[in-house]
């Protein structure tokens, strides 16, 4: 890491929220600054930033990482008050992006190359998905026997039902009340199939461990405290797999939900041309290669990386269920809908 300045902000809403700021000085003579407000691990974004700076020697980048809700709140506030927020906004909460775009809080940008982006990851040329992140099942490869490895949701339900003595208290998933991505994955899981309801009941009976991040669950799986994690971010897990962690990754064979981290140019950006070039870079052949090799390991139109247990027909159109960026995502943000969904989820999870 080239330079790091971590700053913690205390916000007025009572509890402490972190906003970490990092500076990437330009390689050559400084000509312009690009401000990125993001909700994404620096580890994933850093290779892309560094490679971008190789192509644009004069660009200094200020990167700030905070929670998705916070980024969203500040973005929509700046948009309504018509003030400058950032040059680029990056978040994994695509429903936030949908809302921003729907409310006219994103600047239209015609990509230099549109080949890389599938239609579902581009809404109105205003919001662009640039990564390919499947929701996966993770297990501890030392402790879970191959016969027990669940390849589908039904298999997981059966496993929890038939071997409660082994798995009770040793499965984990997102606490969707605290995680935006977890909520999205759960919401679309519920939309896609009825198995999800039975799965939730299974989790409730098995006294599943709930955590707000993939990392927290992964740590427990690696340590052996947990055996199986469900609906976790594949990219993050694959990074750990490469680092030698004793884990296995399964793309659920019935269908795999896919999320694409989204980037957009907020209105009133102070360096819109730099932002446009960064977006073009993210979606260029070069940017996608860097993302697939160093950041997210999965990519549009690429086979899953080695070591991931994928279905033989993973190339088929019905295998991946991408979360399409568009107005239907507004439903996930609907206040009433959200409250109802969370209530149902909590009901299922608290089954004794």
């Amino acid at each position, binding site marked *: 890491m080239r330079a790091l300045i971590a700053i913690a902000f205390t916000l007025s809403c009572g509890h402490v929220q972190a906003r970490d700021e990092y500076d990437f000085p330009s390689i050559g003579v400084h000509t312009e600054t690009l401000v990125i407000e993001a909700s994404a691990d620096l580890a994933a974004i850093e290779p892309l930033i560094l490679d971008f700076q190789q192509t644009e020697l004069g660009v200094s980048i200020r990167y700030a990482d905070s929670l998705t809700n916070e980024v969203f709140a500040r973005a929509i506030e700046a948009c309504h008050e018509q003030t400058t927020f950032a040059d680029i906004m990056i978040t994994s909460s695509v429903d936030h992006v949908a809302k921003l*775009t*729907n*409310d*006219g809080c994103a600047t239209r940008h015609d990509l230099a190359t549109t080949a890389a982006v599938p*239609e579902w990851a581009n*809404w*109105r040329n205003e919001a662009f998905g640039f990564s390919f992140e499947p929701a996966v099942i993770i297990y501890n490869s030392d402790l879970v026997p191959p016969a027990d490895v669940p390849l589908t949701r039904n298999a997981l339900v059966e496993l929890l039902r038939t071997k409660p003595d082994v798995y009770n208290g040793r499965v984990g998933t997102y606490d969707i009340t605290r995680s935006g991505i977890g909520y999205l994955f759960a919401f679309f899981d519920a*939309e896609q199939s009825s198995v999800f309801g039975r799965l939730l009941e299974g989790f409730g009976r098995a006294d599943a461990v709930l955590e707000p991040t993939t990392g927290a669950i992964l740590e427990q799986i690696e340590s052996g405290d947990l055996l199986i994690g469900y609906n976790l971010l594949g990219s993050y897990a694959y990074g750990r797999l490469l680092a030698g962690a004793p884990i296995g990754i399964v793309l659920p064979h019935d269908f795999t939900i896919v999320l694409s981290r989204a980037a957009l140019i907020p209105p009133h950006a102070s360096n819109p041309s730099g932002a446009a070039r960064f977006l073009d870079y993210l979606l260029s052949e070069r940017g996608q290669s860097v993302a697939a090799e160093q950041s997210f390991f999965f990519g549009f139109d690429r086979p899953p990386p080695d070591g991931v247990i994928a279905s033989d027909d993973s190339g088929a159109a019905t295998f991946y269920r991408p979360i*399409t960026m*568009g*107005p*239907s995502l*507004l*439903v996930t943000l*609907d*206040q*009433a*809908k959200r409250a*109802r969904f969370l209530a149902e989820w909590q009901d299922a999870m608290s089954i004794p």
Partner: protein
Amino acid sequence: MTITGIRQRRRFSLFWRLSGIIAIVLLAGAGALTLAAYAYARTAADNAYDRLLIGAARQIADTLGAEAGAVSVDVPTSALETLSISRTDRVYYRVSAPDGSLVTGYEDLPLPEAEDPSDEAVVGDARYFGQDIRSASVWRYLSEQGATGWVRVTVAQTREARNALTLELTLGALVPVLAMSVLALVALMAAVQMGLRPLRRVERALRQRDPNDLTPLDVETPVEVDALIAAINRVMGRLSARLGAMQRYIETSAHQLRTPLTSIAAQVEMLDRAKDDKARATTIAKLRRRTVEVGRLANQLLSHATIIHRAEAMLVDIVDLRQIAQHAIADAVLETLERDLTVKLDAPKSPVYVRGDLVALREALRNLIENAVQHGAQSRVTVRVGETFGGPQISVFDDGPGIAESQWLHLRQRFVTGDIGGTGLGLAIVTDVATAHAATLELTRAETGDFGITMGFPHPEGHS
């Protein structure tokens, strides 16, 4: 000169002018059709997308219910997916409780105008977030504890997909309209060309004609061009008649001149052979008389030729007969000097107007006066100008023997000299001028008993 002047002033091509007018009409028609097509396409696009909008609103309304004394709604993803088919439009929704408070959605979304809540959906246009939107509202009556009344569900979307469909439909209609217009223009241009072809045929026939050929045109033409051909043939006929008259006149004139010239040549011969002074003097006297006669003849021939030409011209001038009389007397006076003869003008104080040609009238009057001086008058010639009940009159009187009634009509023909000699042109000129002016020519007697010839003119229009 005149012809080129006309050409330069009004130079245009009939073909291009017609084509231009047709093109403008077609363009205006195409424009109007396109506007109509646009209006129709917009309505059609709105109808199509309004159904989706209302459908989505009804889908949301179906999930309405009451929970814990409040309106509850479970917005189905499918409702918004219905609207995201176009992938380009933004979508907004708003669910309002019976008291107007927000249940869920966009709190400030503009609502379409509606009278009372009913089962009917209403649609409307508005602006939201700086963009044109189309919104639809449906109502559902809830009668549950704590939530009783009409709950309103409003769904809106931006117009991008509608505009795209409108454009597509309009362009679809525009192509045949333009094609039809171009086709019509080409067809009409060809029709104009075809319509002008007879004119070109006439032109070719006229151009290829022998310069001396003045016979009527015989070209195959459609009935529409008949009038033109008739007009051309009328001109041809007049030209031919005129040329014929001129030719005959020249032939006669040549004959008339040849006789006295032969006589002069004979006199000169005799002069050569004259033996003594007395004979020579006699011959010279004859010669002088002959020469004067030839000069007079030549003069009259030329003036008659002039009159023939002028008589056919339009009579547009208003002239004063008194003035004509004065000039004619002045012209004729020279010849009276040799004799003891008085020429007198008897005219009123006020002008006497007739419609006519100054030169022709003057020439006619001069001939009358000369006739009187040459052939009649003993001692006096009187020119009288006056206005009678029948119209303006001019008369020339002399105290000579006059012309017998029996000879009168005969003498008025060309080259008829009567007993008294002369060129035979004088009365013919007078007759021609009188005919051209629609004037009568009569023999009269003055109170003094003098013999006279009177020209009676019609009243000039506008000068009574």
